[in-house]
């Protein structure tokens, strides 16, 4: 007589060892990708027109490395202006006063609505034509400081101003989205503890908004790094302009484009790492436990061979904290 389904057979008291599902499609796709990659590398290595030895020759040329330094300076200065002004514009945009929020809206409308190369040219040639001297003082009243615009706004200043002011428009939208993403209960809790609006924004809302703000800001910084190449229209001396200067003289156009590309790739890679650690920093408390960094993974792989790496408790959070059955 057949037994009932429940008493059919006790499941074995050992871990399941099942035959995994095979994925032949994945193997085919992987082989295709590998084939394409190998053929590209092969053609690049064997094609003499690439002139790799010349690329190597110019990679650390003093003019190129000088250009790299200028590119970094331009990126940092312009992005700094963009972030600071962007936060200001975002806070203005959220102001209850319509003139203040309207002013912020108008700024964003203008700087997002015109091409950055037009703005750049404008700052380089337009400003000193419109305002030969810049007067600072009381509007419609006495002026105290007189600046010769041509002398004050050098190529470098014009580029930083143009890129920074343009960036601020984009950053303000990013910051605003971050601020809005923070739960209103946070503001209420801070207010109920006696914090002023400014204290609440600085200590409670902005640090939490950073989680939303950082990833697109990293994106913007990478974009900024490459946009600095537009400085070539303003007699810039950054990486792309320098590489063009050299190739204009020796006609090794391809080689110098490769040199510039390699440097841009190297610089953006550095930014990737920076963004990764910034994101991690601002993710504090957002999940129960942060995943290990690549560096932590390597260290554990080396030093904790044979142990459960997570139980070593290298991360801030004790793992079994809320488990009452753990000693």
């Amino acid at each position, binding site marked *: 007589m057949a037994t009932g389904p429940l008493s059919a057979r006790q499941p074995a008291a050992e871990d399941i060892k099942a035959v995994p599902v095979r994925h032949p499609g994945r193997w085919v796709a992987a082989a295709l990708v590998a084939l394409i990659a190998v053929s590209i590398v092969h053609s690049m290595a064997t094609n003499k027109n690439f002139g790799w030895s010349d690329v190597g020759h110019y990679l650390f040329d003093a003019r190129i490395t000088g250009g790299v330094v200028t590119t970094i300076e331009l990126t940092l200065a312009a992005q700094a202006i963009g972030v600071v002004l962007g936060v200001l514009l975002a806070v203005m945009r959220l102001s209850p006063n319509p003139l203040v929020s309207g002013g912020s809206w108008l700024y964003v409308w203008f700087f997002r609505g015109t091409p950055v190369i037009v703005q750049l040219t404008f700052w380089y040639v337009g400003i000193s034509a419109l305002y030969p001297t810049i007067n600072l003082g009381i509007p419609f009243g006495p002026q105290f400081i007189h600046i010769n615009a041509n002398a004050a706004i050098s190529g470098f200043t014009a580029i930083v101003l143009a890129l920074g002011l343009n960036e601020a428009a984009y950053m303000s939208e990013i910051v605003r989205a971050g601020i809005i993403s923070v739960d209103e209960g946070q503001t209420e809790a801070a207010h109920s503890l006696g914090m*002023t609006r400014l204290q609440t924004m600085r*200590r409670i809302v902005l*640090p939490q908004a950073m989680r939303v703000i950082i990833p697109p800001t990293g994106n913007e910084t990478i974009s900024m790094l490459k946009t600095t190449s537009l400085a070539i229209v303003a007699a810039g001396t950054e990486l792309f302009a320098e590489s063009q200067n050299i190739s204009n003289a020796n006609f090794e156009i391809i080689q110098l484009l490769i040199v510039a590309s390699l440097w841009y790739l190297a610089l953006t890679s550095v930014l990737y790492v920076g963004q990764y650690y910034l994101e991690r920093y601002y993710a504090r408390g957002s999940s129960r436990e942060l995943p290990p960094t690549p560096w932590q993974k390597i260290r554990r792989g080396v030093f904790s061979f044979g142990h459960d790496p997570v139980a070593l408790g290298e991360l801030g959070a004790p793992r079994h904290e809320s488990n009452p059955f753990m000693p």
Partner: protein
Amino acid sequence: MTEPMVKAEGVHKRFGRLEVLRGISLEVGRGEVMCIIGPSGSGKSTFLRAINHLEKINRGRLWVDGSLVGYVQRGEKLHELRDAEVAKRRAEIGMVFQRFNLFPHKTALENVIEAPRLVRGVSKSQAVADATALLDRVGLSDKLASYPSQLSGGQQQRVAIARALAMKPKLMLFDEPTSALDPELVGDVLDVMRDLARDGMTMVVVTHEMGFAREVADKLVFMDGGVIVEAGDPREVLASPQHERTRLFLSKVL
């Protein structure tokens, strides 16, 4: 005659055309515990939030410890208080929210020391000592370095209570402090509140915990439709409600 800690006279609040509070008058004496009960949408949370000016009232008067909430009277006219002055008054009133509203980017200890450091300018060592004592008092001395996401709801709410107490408030407001908790975690939070009441803290508690109200409250208020339907000694109101509306509500929740 000592002044009551909270005094409301004909308080009205409108959201657009919706009248949420339609003339609330009550008094909470010093050291008293008042529980406010009522169906959702009855305006009880709005009234609680009005006490520390998270909601602006449209009509009537509201005093905490003798001073008007959110305004100052000069002659006939009411003048709105500046942000810094509103903040100063709020610092004296602790508030505990249904959804805890802990600062997720700060540890339990950092949550508690934040406001004393920032608002009162307490030294770091002093703030940490106070906060450690408070977290110990709510039974969380082993959770100082935990982030809110690593704590259970009941633990988070107890951190929130410690955070409010760190400002040494003269009045504590509780907005359904146990409504978002698993049933088995409610008891720990109520224990902390019971201790607080025993120590003489003035408390206004919006709650659905009738047992707590019966045991701890000095006064029970039943609100519905933006008005106080019935108020009095909690044991009497709960045992023999005088109004049909109260009777109906209690029959559903008890």
